[in-house]
């Protein structure tokens, strides 16, 4: 468990210094643990694992938008756990469930294998994207699903690279709001 956390902390420190690749690796590395904790917690509320991806994505967005609140001198595990817990409780409240059930920490699921990822391929790809405005949706599509770089996206959409970055940042913030406000 300590080794995992140390690795995450190293990646996150590099990310905070501007290393985009390290940041992507960091987010990919923490996702399985968040997913496993989310599934176990959903099970405690009698909900199926299919709901887990909402919790995972909501948590990743919060980690991203609140990344400056991690103090690099402190352990990163409790920080991630606290964000995941907050987001999980949020989602349960929105569904009218009382969050009285003890909730498992992400750090307790660190070593767990993430086996069911493949089953998620059918997950509704477009539901969240559809709620973005057209410009944001196009930028996010090009950058992610089509895997284009910022420069390629700028050329294809006839925008400047700066405008692409601003649009992406607004889209990310909009997604966080969409998660916060979505009602089941």
């Amino acid at each position, binding site marked *: 468990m300590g080794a995992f956390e140390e690795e995450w902390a190293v990646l996150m420190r590099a990310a*905070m210094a*501007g290393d*985009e*690749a390290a*940041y*992507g690796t960091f*987010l*990919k590395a923490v*996702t399985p643990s968040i997913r496993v904790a989310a599934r176990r917690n959903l099970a405690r509320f009698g909900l199926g694992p299919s709901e887990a*991806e909402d919790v*995972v*994505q909501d948590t*990743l*967005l*919060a980690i*991203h*938008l*609140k*990344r*400056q*609140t991690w*103090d690099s001198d*402190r352990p990163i595990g*409790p*920080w991630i*756990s*606290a*964000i995941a817990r*907050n987001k999980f409780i949020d989602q349960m409240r929105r569904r009218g469930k009382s969050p009285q059930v003890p909730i498992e920490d992400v750090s307790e699921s660190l070593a767990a294998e993430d086996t069911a990822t493949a089953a*998620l*391929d059918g*997950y509704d*790809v*477009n*539901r*969240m*994207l559809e709620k973005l405005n057209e410009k944001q949706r196009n930028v*996010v599509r090009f*950058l*992610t*699903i089509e*895997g284009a770089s*910022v420069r390629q996206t700028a050329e294809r959409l006839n925008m400047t690279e700066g405008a692409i*970055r*601003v649009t*992406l*940042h607004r*889209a*990310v913030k909009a*997604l966080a709001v969409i998660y916060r406000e979505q009602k089941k």
Partner: protein
Amino acid sequence: MKTDDLIAALAKDQAVPAPKPRTAIVYAIIAGTVISAILFMAILGSRPDIDEAAETYRFLFKFVFTLTLAASAIALVFQIFRPEAAPGRRLWLIALAPGMLLIAAFAELLVMPSASWMPRLIGVNARFCLTLIPLLSVAPLAAFLWALRHAAPANPGLAGALSGLSAAGIAATLYASHCVDDSPLFVMTWYSLAIGLVTLIGYFAGKRWLAW
């Protein structure tokens, strides 16, 4: 959206990160205090007999109380802004200033004849006190809430209430140099009411704006 796609989008979002919460809180303390102090000088100013007043224990105690309150509330704001923060027993720090005030009020009852208790408690400026402390709290409270929007407090209501308490502590310190009612009985009644009101407003503002 697939989670891998979301991760790709997040990794590419290299927008200039918001200020570090700790820095933002320091800015908030400075900006909130300066704006309130300017407002205070513009509409009130300190009382004309401040030099004589500064030699009396009662006048000086008001600052001991308000500065202790502001310092302890601000110290706690620094404890609660992270998502994994658990202030626990440190929250008892909040009891320090009210505890001192209770002792001072008790001492006042011991040394002053009972006939003077009510006049001292009611004072001459109660309505002023109830309006001006909240008014002078507006800028610092807004500044603290702005700073904590850049943080991720585990408990938004508590973070808002502590913001209100810190702001009211700053405001009450300024107001105390104008106010001619120096009895701890007055402070315990009217300052506490005004500070409590700002804290309550902070609590609801926190629930509304500091959730993330």
